[in-house]
């Protein structure tokens, strides 16, 4: 048998006599084949040779199992004896004792098992030879004969209708899993809902969470109000509506305010209102710094300048926060002039259609 013949079919190991390297044709060439170096000599552990060491590791394993048992008992005792109670302190004590007992029970058991296997159980190496996977020729030809007989019996080769019906039905079966799976991803495919919010002409600006309307005179310079539309709680799916409609409103000294010509009447005496939903990925932008008029998004540090149309000063947001046009009604309460002029929040494919 040559060494070039490829994979070994039988279980025997080819091993040149004397364990020398079978070298190639010339000097400095790699050998065609490396010999199997075999297993290194077995090195007995301390516990294999020294009875005192063996007794010691057995004691250690028993101790670890003992710790595990104590942990289990301790956890059960703590479960009954130390109820969480009503105060933070008693809850913390209960959690601590339960967790500690569970840790000792699980970790003690695992550590004992590993320590046992490593130190006391036999670690003498065993070699098992691999067997050939291929069946003998007789079994193979028998199997092929049985399959051919089955195919001929079913008549699938002769009856084309049955073949087509089988393949067609089989191809449709995955739909029973795939359709509900894909259909429920995201729950709702109507992205057009982002185009409109609850804000509408004449809708009052109210305080979040109380829903009290806000007078323009109450918004003093340097104030920040977190605003929701009037009647939010009465709307269907009010949490989703709130997530779209939240607004941050501040009053600046009108001399600090830079306004685009087409937006001059969107503010009221220095009071400006912007959508609180970041145009990057939709986090609530609400970290308002009164002195710098900067509005910071806590997720990715996009920074907007409230004094200048909420333009992006820093960060990954690509466009300013949408502005809510506001004015006051006859009673002095702040109202919206209209909905936002553009969809709020992050970009999506149909946004500008």
């Amino acid at each position: 048998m040559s060494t070039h013949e490829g994979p070994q079919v039988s279980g025997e190991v080819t091993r040149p006599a004397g364990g020398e390297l079978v070298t190639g044709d010339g000097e400095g060439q790699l050998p065609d084949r490396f010999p199997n170096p075999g297993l290194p000599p077995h090195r007995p552990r301390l516990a294999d040779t020294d009875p005192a060491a063996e007794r010691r590791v057995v004691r250690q394993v028993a101790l670890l199992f003992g710790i595990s048992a104590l942990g289990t008992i301790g956890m059960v005792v703590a479960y009954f004896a130390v109820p969480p109670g009503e105060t933070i302190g008693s809850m913390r004590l209960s959690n601590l004792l339960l967790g500690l007992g569970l840790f000792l029970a699980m970790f003690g058991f695992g550590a004992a098992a590993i320590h046992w296997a490593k130190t006391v159980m036999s670690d003498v190496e065993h070699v098992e030879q691999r067997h050939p996977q291929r069946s003998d020729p007789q079994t193979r030809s028998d199997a092929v004969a049985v399959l051919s007989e089955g195919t001929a019996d079913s008549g699938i080769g002769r009856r084309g209708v049955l073949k087509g019906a089988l393949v067609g039905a089989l191809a449709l079966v995955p739909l029973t899993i795939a359709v509900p799976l894909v259909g429920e991803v995201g729950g709702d495919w109507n992205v057009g809902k982002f185009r409109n919010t609850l804000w509408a002409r004449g809708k009052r600006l109210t305080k979040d969470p109380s829903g009290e309307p806000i007078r323009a005179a109450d918004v003093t310079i340097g104030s920040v109000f977190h605003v929701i539309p009037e009647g939010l709680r009465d709307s269907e799916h009010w949490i989703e509506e709130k997530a779209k409609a939240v607004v941050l409103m501040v009053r600046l000294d009108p001399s600090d305010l830079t306004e685009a010509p087409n937006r001059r009447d969107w503010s009221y005496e220095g009071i400006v209102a912007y959508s609180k939903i970041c145009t990057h990925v939709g986090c609530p932008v609400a970290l308002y710094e009164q002195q710098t008029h900067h509005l910071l998004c806590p997720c990715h540090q996009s920074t907007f300048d409230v004094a200048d149309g909420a333009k992006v000063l820093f960060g990954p947001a690509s466009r300013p926060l949408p502005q809510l046009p506001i004015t006051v009604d006859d009673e002095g309460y702040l109202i919206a002039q209209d909905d936002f002029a553009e969809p709020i929040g992050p970009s999506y494919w149909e946004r500008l259609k």
Partner: protein
Amino acid sequence: MKAIVDRRHHRLAPVVLLLAALLTMGALYAAFSPTPAGAAVATQTDIDAGRALFTANCATCHGPRAEGRDEVPSLIGVGAAAVDFQVSTGRMPMQASGPQAMAKPPALDAEQTRQLAAYVASLAPGPQIPSAEQVNPALGDAANGMALFRTNCAMCHGAVGSGGALTSGKYAPALGQSTPTEIYEAMLTGPQAMPVFNDANLTPDDKRDVIAFLEAQKAGSPGGTDLGAVGPVSEGLWVWVVGMGLLIASAVWIGAKSS
């Protein structure tokens, strides 16, 4: 008496003596210390003393008549509450100009702070120092306070008031060490980067509810250590360093041959 004489040379005697001395001093200080600012009505004497303190400590930056200049706010109309907050927490007088005026041991004592507040309040009407009843957490509703805190404060100060970073080196301080009066004054006056929450926005009852919520957080977390309650940074550090370190150590131990 003999027993005391016998124990005079006991090695714990100095410790006992020191404790006794400290307790005596503490009791005396509590009995004789001046009453907190705002308790007394400001007199013309207070205002005059406050003006002298203002000239010595504040006028360099805020101007001789508290009119302010570029980058330095005018103090006309900020009221006694702003002065009490800034001076009693040591934020003012500022140590050095920088992104944030940090809290530090106060430079003026309680009486001087009261006089200074009286002077600044005399310049123009402004927010007053709240009464003890207005800031009593026991009278507040912590559950309503939580709803208000979550909407108005948590984005900067964190969900349980442990503070957080702002832009350009500024930060929202942790509120665990702040007194109810300081918290009330901060909401009322909007110190530094913090916006104002006037009484129309958060009513005095709302403010007391927020204080009650913050007081309730001092009991800590029922789950044990909260790792500073600053969110994913400290928790992630713990998981990556301690948690994964333990897992790697266990894997190395399991894989190592026993000697």
